[in-house]
């Protein structure tokens, strides 16, 4: 599903690499936490997965493809097989919940009939059944994140990438979001989640990868958060 072979990433005009010689493999259906302090390279790791950036050295394989060899015009096709969720939800404030989810399907040219059928289904799945016509501003943070997850999952991606999805939420709401992500994971979708939330990592007991100053310092199955910040 995901394989990094001796991957390094140095941004232009910076001496210190953001990622240094990282090698790892993530199998289909895994749930992986990515932990590390700010500036440890978590965001760079996720950007490499999304091919927002290309590795400076080494090879990144996602969904069986070498991203360095993927031509630019094929990148959108690759991204359609990924779902992404962010700390700041990234919803369109002037569109309803249903329209936000439908937007993801519209822009990749899905037929209208299919959109009308799929959107309520996926909203039901994330626990927002019947709230299609609400505006994002009327919803709580947890509900907004559910909308974002619905949008990420509406294409039934093979891989869901979550960048601190609970970063703006209170602990109780976070638990709900994690339950949802766990449920999505059980459908066979691989989940990679960067987080600072110790409680969640310790509770879920999933595979934990820790980055420190760009190096992969720990890769532990059924791991814990494990460091103080």
């Amino acid at each position, binding site marked *: 599903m995901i394989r990094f072979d001796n991957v390094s990433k140095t941004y232009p005009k910076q001496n210190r690499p953001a990622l240094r010689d990282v090698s790892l493999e993530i199998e289909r259906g895994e749930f992986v936490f990515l932990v590390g302090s700010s500036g440890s390279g978590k965001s760079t790791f996720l950007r490499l997965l999304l091919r927002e950036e290309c590795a400076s050295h080494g090879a990144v394989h996602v969904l069986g493809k070498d991203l360095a060899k993927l031509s630019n*015009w094929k990148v959108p096709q690759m991204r359609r097989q990924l779902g992404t969720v962010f700390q700041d939800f990234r919803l369109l404030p002037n569109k309803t919940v249903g329209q936000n989810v439908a937007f993801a399907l519209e822009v*990749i*040219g899905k037929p*209208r009939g299919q959109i009308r059928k799929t959107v309520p289904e996926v909203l039901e799945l994330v626990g927002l059944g019947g709230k299609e016509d609400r505006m994002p501003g009327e919803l709580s943070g947890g509900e907004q994140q559910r909308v974002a997850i619905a949008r990420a999952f509406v294409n039934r991606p093979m891989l869901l990438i979550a960048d601190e999805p609970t970063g703006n939420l209170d602990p109780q709401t976070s638990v709900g979001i994690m339950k949802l992500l766990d449920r999505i994971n059980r459908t066979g979708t691989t989940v990679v989640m960067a987080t600072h939330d110790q409680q969640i990592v310790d509770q879920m007991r999933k595979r934990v990868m820790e980055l420190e100053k760009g190096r992969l310092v720990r890769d532990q199955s059924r791991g814990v958060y494990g460091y103080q910040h």
Partner: protein
Amino acid sequence: MRAQFVLSEIGVGLRRNLTMTFAVIVSVALSLGLFGASLLMSDQVDTMKGYWYDKVNVSIFFCNKNDTSGANCAKGAATEQQKAEIKADLERLPIVQKPVLHESSDQAYKHYKEQFGDTPVAGLVTPDQLPESFRVKLKDPTKYEVIKSAFSERPGVQEVQDQRDTVEPLFNLLDGMRIAALCVMGLMLVVALLLIVNTVRVSAFSRRRETGIMRLVGASSFYIQMPFIMEAAIAGLIGAAFACVLIVGGKYALINNWLAEKIKVVDFIGWDAVVSVLPLILLIGLVMPAFAAFFALRKYLKV
């Protein structure tokens, strides 16, 4: 590609940048209007050249018994023999279109009367003050120098005059106006293009949320860029339509209603010439802003 979705995006974009869109429309309209005007002006010059060059002659004026000012006129009026020789020599030249016309003093006086009929000047002139002349039509009007060098030194010839000299300043003026219009058009075009680039930049910035999400969910770059390009193309097309209105209105007001009534001797361009430039203007108005937007997007919109 869902047309309805794209159209609604374009509508939102155009309305969001209403002032910028308006500026783009105005500058495109002005620059393309000037472009069309300069095209028509060169058409006009060509028409007039064709019309005038057909009519103008090289005139060889002979010495007159009352006027001995010419260098070759010391011996008084040109003799019949001199005239006959010159006529024979003229007709032998291959560049001269036969027949060579002879204008006597009386005929010259008649033409003079026609031109200045009612003015006080007309009374001051008598037939014998006006010189006799040959009116020579050239196959190639630019070969005037040949005639001049061959005949201006001949005895009995007062002056060789190219009538083109009298119409040429007008053509030069029109050409100058056309070039000035082209220069202003060039400037307006640069302004229009910069405005489009800036509009796209603002538009891309104000929609970065949407385009960011589009990118994440795997919309193709074509799909992401299309609304921006279409916006620029539509604004450009509206501008081009205004330019067409300006040109048609200009032709109607300036030529049909004003110049054509004031200046009867000039053959003005017709509607066919005007209609033939309109599609070109619409095409340029559509394509050029689209290209400008496309190149601006490469800089301001990450895809």
